[in-house]
């Protein structure tokens, strides 16, 4: 239950001088404990804002977000966050970067050290624990960021387009790494992306968001089990699901079209 996220009719209005911009308009959804939910939408549609509100990093204008039953008022230790940028501290080694949140939260090295080493091995950074970020490739840096988000063993992992800055091949690799991690440590995951393929490949459910002001217009269940690999991406179901989601996003782009709530499969 501690990984349960509930978002009820949440709005976000940015006030810039006299202008106010509505970034998120009445979004509602639920992510169950241990579920991997992708939030799919066009760039700049407010989906990142919604994610940051779940993480307590953005204030909520109206509506309610609860995690594990308690309302979100600020960042909490039970939520790990991954950003689009790996944001590693350049003077710290891979291991020190991974241990950074644990250090901030005054966790002892005996407590989190073994877990950090386990994560380093799991994402294939074995020989790189003492390297500096400057010596790593973009994909390796994001692997460090995954480990860092997981080192304090949070119940929830929020991911804000974490692989969008990577090239296509590295991105596929990272998706597989993330699947492996999900196999081992079952968390509740919220994954923001504008890649339909990535959303279908990773998630148990895909939420489709409209352009600004953003709201959730569809909640699509993905029928693949957790033990999936790249071979599913060549199945007809996968292609069909992608086409279905593509079609839905395209329709949203046309002004005047009514917003339909769709439940699939």
């Amino acid at each position, binding site marked *: 239950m501690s990984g349960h996220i509930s978002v009820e009719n949440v709005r976000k209005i940015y006030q810039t001088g006299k202008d106010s911009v509505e970034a998120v308009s009445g979004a509602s959804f639920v992510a169950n404990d241990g579920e991997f939910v992708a939030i799919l939408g066009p760039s700049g549609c407010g989906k990142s804002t919604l994610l940051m509100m779940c*993480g307590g990093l953005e204030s909520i204008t109206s509506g309610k977000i609860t995690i594990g039953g308690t309302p979100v008022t600020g*960042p909490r230790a039970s939520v790990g*966050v991954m950003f689009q940028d790996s*944001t590693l501290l350049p003077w710290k080694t891979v291991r020190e970067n991974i241990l950074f*949140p644990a*250090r*901030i939260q005054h966790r002892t090295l005996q407590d989190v050290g073994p877990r950090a080493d386990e994560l380093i091995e799991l994402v294939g950074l074995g020989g790189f624990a003492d*390297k500096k970020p400057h*010596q*790593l490739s973009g994909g390796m840096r994001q692997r460090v960021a995954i480990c860092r988000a997981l080192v304090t063993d949070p119940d929830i992992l929020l991911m804000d387009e974490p692989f969008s800055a990577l090239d296509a091949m590295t991105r596929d690799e990272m998706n597989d790494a993330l699947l492996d991690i999900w196999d081992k440590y079952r968390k509740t995951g919220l994954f923001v992306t504008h890649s339909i393929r990535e959303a279908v490949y990773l998630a148990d459910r895909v939420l489709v968001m409209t352009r600004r002001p953003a709201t959730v217009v569809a909640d699509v269940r993905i029928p693949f089990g957790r033990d999936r690999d790249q071979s599913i991406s060549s199945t007809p179901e996968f292609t069909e699901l992608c086409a279905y989601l593509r079609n839905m996003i395209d329709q949203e782009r046309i002004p005047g079209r009514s917003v339909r709530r769709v439940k699939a499969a």
Partner: protein
Amino acid sequence: MSEISLPRSTSPRNPRISDASLSVLLPVGLAVFVLVAWQIGAKVSGISPVILPAPSDILASYNGIVGDLAHQSVATGSEAFFAFFLSCFFGLITALVLSSSVILFETFYPNLVVFQIIPKIALAPLFTFWLGIGATSRLSYAVFISFFPVALATMTGLSRADAGALRLCRAAGATRWQTFFHVQIPYSLPYFFSGAKVAATLSIIGIVIGEFISANEGLGYFILRAQSYGQTSKIFAALSVLCGLGLLLYVLPVQGERMLRKWWRGS
């Protein structure tokens, strides 16, 4: 896991100048060209060596004054070094204190920026008036002018820590102080060193100006004395020693920067 080739550090240098020796040859070549042109110009034009001595005249004038110059250099150099050290120390402390609170920062930062604009050279006589004609007034003045760039640069650096890193701290639930120590201070160090480079130059300027106003030793005093005797080539000799002192002092923050880069990039 197999060894993966690490990304090469990219040189900020113009890619057209790919040959490393060229980047040494070109500036050295220009310096030699200017010296040769100066030598020939001074000799051919017939300008009196009292107005513009040729480089060879300056070299010749070292003869017999090396001991004196060395003595004066030690006086100026040690005071300048001390002033540089103090201004870095006080600049850093001031920046840390004033950046520790938003109210302090907002109160002081704009005032410091405005104060920085005052031509502080004009204040040198005041220091003599307040603190007498000894080393104290020279040192205080040199620290006074070279302290500002360090304090301002460090404050700027502390306020410009990487936005992503600050967000990371917030997500991890870091306190203000944790963010300050773990992220803001390390990110301000490059700014501190660029401030220290300016301070290295200014602290020598401060000491020499102090010596112009009141001193019975030091290179500034030496220059004034040579001027009163019309010994232009000695002035140039002292100037070249001052250049050397400036370089020596400048090497310190540059070396600091190099160590910082090594720390950030790994060995």
